[in-house]
């Protein structure tokens, strides 16, 4: 398969764009794979790509129940950032952000990564103290962070509520200029195409229905396309992790919850950055097509339904209007739900499982999209070496048992509070 370039564009334009090769194959599953990744979302495809690229493993399959990128990869609000405070998260997400910065070149696919800056607003003196502390911690970890005051923000984002009537006055905020957004579907497509070029078999419409065990190891995976033998298995199935684990009799420190996201009718450019509200849970950015993309809290009750409920929509919009009163003039044209794997400390789980040759990549809560390349990078390392990368040692499955939770918000073991 040939690379995308200016020459390939010209060549295909001459042929009326009718001779583009397909971007990835549609292979029939083989009898045996060295590694089977379950889930062809961003994380699963990135893991397969880095397994092939960094670790030289060629006999890999990625099994997908539906179509690739059809789960949370295609349902998120596309925000990328690394403004974390605890080392386990901060260093991992910073690695991911560094990979994002080179990703379009690495994959020969434009993921439209746009470092437009992520601004977290602060509305009280205590919140200013908190973002100052976070910003200082980030800078000590070598991550960019800038404290901005009310006047600076008013100049940057005049559409926020700076009136005396604002219920939550803006005091200032923390700006990470290297943060931004990426085109979510392109990330799945780019990783899929690049992994396929390295020989990875991506098998869509192939649901995992069970496992055959040999001692404490998975011998083969039963699927809707037959039984496939394997040496190692990795789960990258986000909200479905609990369901899949139950087929192995495994219970996890995870609850599945539904998170909704929203798109408004398209507008001319108004919101140049990603902005988050400090007095409630609300985050917003503007897509290249002009729609305002925003979201807030999860619906708060366990759910495997990819649909949410109306009270939460009211809740999200209320927070949005408190931040940007002008949103009241807009119509929401689409909203949808995705199933989040909410972990007990709000941080992801990437590492070995209680089963010898099974590796877990789950617990992403609200924030899996930004982790996509980093998650693939360390998960591939963990699978290839049967040992974690230095960046995911602290994010292991056993941390809960040992009382070493990585609780960024200090929310305690209540998954819907993270």
């Amino acid at each position, binding site marked *: 398969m040939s690379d995308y370039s200016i020459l390939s564009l010209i060549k295909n334009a001459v042929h009326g764009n009718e001779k583009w090769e397909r971007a990835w194959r549609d292979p029939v599953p083989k009898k045996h794979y060295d590694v089977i990744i379950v889930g062809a979302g961003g994380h699963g495809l990135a893991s397969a790509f880095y397994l092939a690229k960094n670790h030289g493993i060629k006999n890999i399959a990625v099994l997908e129940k539906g179509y690739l990128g059809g789960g949370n990869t295609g349902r998120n609000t596309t925000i990328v950032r690394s403004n974390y405070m605890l080392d386990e998260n901060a260093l991992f997400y910073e690695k991911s952000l560094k990979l994002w910065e080179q990703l379009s070149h690495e994959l020969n696919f434009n993921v439209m990564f746009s470092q437009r800056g992520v601004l977290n607003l602060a509305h009280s003196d205590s919140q200013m103290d908190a973002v100052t502390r976070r910003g200082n911690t980030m800078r000590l970890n070598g991550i960019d962070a800038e404290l901005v005051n009310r006047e600076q923000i008013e100049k940057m984002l005049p559409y926020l509520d700076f009136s005396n009537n604002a219920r939550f006055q803006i005091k200032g905020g923390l700006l990470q200029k290297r943060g931004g957004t990426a085109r979510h579907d392109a990330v799945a497509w780019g990783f899929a195409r690049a992994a396929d070029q390295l020989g990875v078999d991506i098998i869509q419409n192939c649901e995992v229905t069970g496992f055959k065990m040999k001692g404490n190891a998975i011998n083969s995976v039963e699927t809707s396309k037959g039984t496939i033998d394997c040496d190692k298995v990795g789960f990258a199935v986000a909200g479905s992790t609990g369901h899949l684990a139950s087929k192995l009799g495994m219970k996890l420190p995870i609850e599945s919850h539904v998170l909704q996201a929203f798109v408004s009718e398209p507008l001319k450019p108004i919101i140049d950055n990603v902005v988050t509200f400090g007095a409630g849970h609300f985050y917003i950015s503007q897509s290249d097509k002009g729609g305002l993309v925003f979201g807030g809290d999860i619906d708060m*009750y366990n759910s495997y339904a990819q649909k949410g409920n*109306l009270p939460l929509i009211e809740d999200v919009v209320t927070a949005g209007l408190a931040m940007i009163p002008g949103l009241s003039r807009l119509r929401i044209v689409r909203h949808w739900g995705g199933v989040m794997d909410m972990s*007990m400390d709000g941080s992801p789980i990437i590492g070995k499982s209680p089963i010898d040759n099974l590796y877990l990549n789950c617990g992403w809560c609200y924030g899996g999209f930004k982790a996509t390349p980093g998650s693939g990078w360390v998960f591939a390392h963990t699978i290839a070496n049967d040992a974690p990368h230095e960046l995911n040692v602290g994010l292991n499955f056993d941390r*809960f048992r040992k009382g070493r939770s990585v609780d960024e918000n200090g929310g305690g073991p209540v998954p819907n509070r993270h």
Partner: protein
Amino acid sequence: MIRIRCPHCGVRDHKEFSYIGDATKIRPPEPSLASDEEWYDYIYIRNNPKGPHEEYWQHVVGCRSFVKVLRDTLTHEVLATGLPADQLKENYEAK
């Protein structure tokens, strides 16, 4: 909107309730005698089924009581509700 039948107040919108979570988790009755493994299981491990889920909701803007609810996590349908001590799942499956 999910509609939940509170045993004390009748059928109400789920907006009136606060979600508490997995109702199958029981705090070790003798905390000082419980092993680390029992605490780990109680604090961190959840059933998280795809399908009927026994859970607590608190009727915070009503009678403030805890209500046990059997709800399908795939469809959000409320299958049964009762008092905290009721065995909703067993009764529902026996029907």
